[in-house]
């Protein structure tokens, strides 16, 4: 079923806040074979927030995660994420089009710290695949 076109421009409620711990940053880095040596978290760490925001969006719209394939991801950083940060993400549906039975969903998420200051802006293209032929 195609995703509802009226979603374009809609901002979803902010995710619950995520406290960044050294332990979690270490686990995230280790999962990709990297070693966390203190300082800023790996550059792709903000996906933890963006993904939580995407999941909430998919649930709200009754879209199955297993039908989602990632098309594109971009991060623009104001500063590195560091342990001690308390972050939330707010997702907006930026664009929506249908190609060959798939929905191509463009989203942007702003990741802000406990003071509401922007840490990272990220955009994602999600491909919502139709049923297998």
């Amino acid at each position, binding site marked *: 079923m195609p995703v509802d076109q009226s979603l374009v421009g809609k901002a979803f409620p902010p995710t619950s806040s995520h406290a960044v711990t050294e332990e*979690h940053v270490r*686990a*995230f880095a*280790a*999962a*990709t*074979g*990297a070693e966390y040596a203190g300082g*800023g978290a*790996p*550059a*792709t760490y903000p*996906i*933890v927030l963006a*993904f*939580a925001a995407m*999941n909430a969006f998919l649930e709200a719209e009754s879209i199955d*995660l*297993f*039908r*989602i*394939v*990632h*098309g*594109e*991801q*971009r*991060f*623009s*950083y104001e*500063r*590195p994420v560091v342990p001690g940060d308390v972050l939330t993400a707010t997702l907006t549906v930026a664009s929506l089009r249908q190609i060959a039975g798939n929905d191509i969903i463009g989203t942007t998420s702003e990741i802000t710290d406990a003071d509401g200051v922007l840490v990272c802006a990220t955009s994602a*293209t999600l491909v919502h*695949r139709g049923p*297998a*032929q």
Partner: protein
Amino acid sequence: MTLPTQTYTITRDDLVRYAAASGDQNPIHQDEQVARGVGLPGVIAHGMYTMALAARAVAEWFPGSEVVSLGCKFTSPVVVPADGGVEVEVAGEAVASGDADGLTTVKLVVTCAGQKVLGMPKAVVRGPHR
């Protein structure tokens, strides 16, 4: 300046660890049947896993630098076999802006079995030069 190509191996266990750390429990990254059910050739790595490897290479090439931006398209899936793993190569070309901003653009080429898996991956870093 051409940067030394980095080679990393991805296993199914890595994907399970990454799913837990990132929160992305999409079963197409862990369950062969679900992956094939949506028309994929098998269990595939999270796109963000491959992107994390690109970021890891950048961090290894530019220790102590700060990433200003990072982006790519996910153009081809990285299929991860149940046994052993799959190798991903990250190559890079660095171009310093030469301006006072101290920015360096890193154009990446990320391949698996000789095929590009990310579309136009690029990072911009600020800070200590190589």
